[in-house]
């Protein structure tokens, strides 16, 4: 599955001040029954975002919203950067979580740490997860929760965030993943370039450990 090349200019930062936000919270299970990749955005953080019980097939535009939840705060409408706390995306491997975040409009997530599978799933969908020190995160939270929302530019090429007050914050990103994001590369296509090596590995392993090559279809 190929993804759109990563491109983000200046964007609003939405502060979600919770640690250990799990994938059940990001997209509750009743919405995992869709067989498409799109359409999950209206149910992002469903149980926190709405006051009624979320079920598939509802018209979310008419549902009662929880005014205390940050996504419903008028300041953060149109935000495409999510600022949050440690261990974001823990729990299940459901890729519906990044699909929901992306469908809502988030392209960057900034946190002190992420759960492994979620972190990986983000890159596969063109979302950039950025890890920053706890102290920097605290500072960003204090700026993002003021009356005027924080805006920043994400410069992936140069690996830095540029805040609306001119502050620059450098960040790390794996070079391979950066290249994939910038060029919107198709992972499968990249792997298939090594087809001959995979075949050679299989030939060698069939000799060493033939029990691994039993055909379950037979």
């Amino acid at each position: 599955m190929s993804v759109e090349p990563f491109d983000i200019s200046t964007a609003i930062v939405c502060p979600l001040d919770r640690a250990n936000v799990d994938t059940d919270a990001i997209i509750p299970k009743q919405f995992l029954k869709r067989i498409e990749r799109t359409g999950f955005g209206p149910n992002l953080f469903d149980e926190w975002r709405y006051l009624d019980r979320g079920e598939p097939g509802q018209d979310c535009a008419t549902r009662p919203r929880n005014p205390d939840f940050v996504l419903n705060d008028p300041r953060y409408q149109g935000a495409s950067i999510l600022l949050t706390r440690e261990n974001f995306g823990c729990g299940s491997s459901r890729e519906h979580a990044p699909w929901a975040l992306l469908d809502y409009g988030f392209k960057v997530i900034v946190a002190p740490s992420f759960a492994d599978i979620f972190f990986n799933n983000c890159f596969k969908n063109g979302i950039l997860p950025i890890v920053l020190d706890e102290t920097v995160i605290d500072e960003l939270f204090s700026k993002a929760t003021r009356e005027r929302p924080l805006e920043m530019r994400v410069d992936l090429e140069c690996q830095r965030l540029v805040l609306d007050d001119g502050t620059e914050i450098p960040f790390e990103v794996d070079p391979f993943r950066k290249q994939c994001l910038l060029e919107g590369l198709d992972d499968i296509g990249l792997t298939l370039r090594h087809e001959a090596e995979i075949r050679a590995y299989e030939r060698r392993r069939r000799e060493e450990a033939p029990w691994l090559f039993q055909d379950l279809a037979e």
Partner: protein
Amino acid sequence: MAPKTLYEKLWDTHVVRTDPDGTALLYIDRHLLHEVTSPQAFEGLRLAGRRPWRPGANLATADHNVPTRERAAGIPDPVSRLQVETLERNCREFAIPEFGMHDRRQGIVHVIGPEQGLTLPGMTLVCGDSHTSTHGALGALAFGIGTSEVEHVLATQCLIQKRARTLRVQVDGTLAPGVTAKDLILAIIGEMGTAGGTGHAIEFAGEAVRRLSVEGRMTLCNMAIEAGARAGFVAVDETTLDYVRGRAYAPKGELWERAAASWRRLHSDPGARFDREVRLRGDAVEPQVTWGTSPEMVVSVRAAVPDPEAEADPVKAAGMRRALEYMDLTPGTPIQQIAIDKVFIGSCTNSRIEDLREAAAVLRGGRVAASVKQALVVPGSGPVKAQAEAEGLDRVFEQAGFEWREPGCSMCLAMNADRLEPGERCASTSNRNFEGRQGAGGRTHLVSPAMAAAAALAGRFVDVRTLGD
């Protein structure tokens, strides 16, 4: 040759190629699929005009959405039905072997893999489900993946991976009677935190682990992900080989001998270096009960609900306060005073025959408390169910007032009809106590099967070790 950890052995034998920056192409021996995380992957193949690399290395089953009663009537929920039918259609189109909903071998994907011998020591095994770490109990490198990676494995039989850091969790001494693998893993998570294992692959070792059955080791490895680690595993020993021998898809005859000889090398070499080590005393572990909305929020059944005021870290204290509010609990309340509404025995953590035996042993001759609205047992697979029935366990459960259901994920994540109503409190043998996990507004307390059975009888949490007193 330098001594290697088990992780390094498993990794090294599966690397197809490595780039200079350490990004590796890792060969995947076995791929398990289920209905929730696969439809978009098959769609991706279809759109790109690709076919599975090695269809016979895959096995699919429907478990998350399937009803646990009146199954012959099909799936009443049209959205769930479409997802299960989509899996069947995709398996036909792409020649993927499948255990359908009515196959007697159907069950939770992490129960049927080891049970059928689809999971073998020394394998790399993946599935679009975070609890894939379960299969590490057999000395395999097993981890959960997202849907993009499901598509990647289908198309290439490989994954793009970076080597994880190694962590050994060493449990010395033996577990006391009445204390199970579930209590041990909850205690480990309480110690390490839910992000404590992030970036690591955990090897569970030590006397207490070696003494566990393979079923117990599966419970342990199953929740490695709840400690933040994608993979958890246990070295191969005779217990492992005894478990695998004779399974439907396990090698036979001369091939078995060859395989077993190679599997006996699947342990960390003496002197192998781990990036991190955690040590625990097994005999100090007591039956555990979670009180909050994260598996790390756990205490001994003899303790009380903790007080956020005593927590120095403000982010952690805020999380505790939010959890207490959601769980409707007051700091200082003894765990044994918490009354429950429902009991769920099942899930990929605790739905194997040994789990059902432990729960039934507690229930035998007893009766579920009148205040408990519903008590469910959902066996992990068709063969587990048949075995339990052959042993008469179904009658023990039913006579005690439990409902005896068909295999599936059921109330662990409530994608089918089995769920908590808002405000209901459940003693559950599953793996996640997240907000809304077992149904919107539902309150989950994670426990062992024996502790769930004891709670069912008492209508509140009790120390299973004192039950007959």
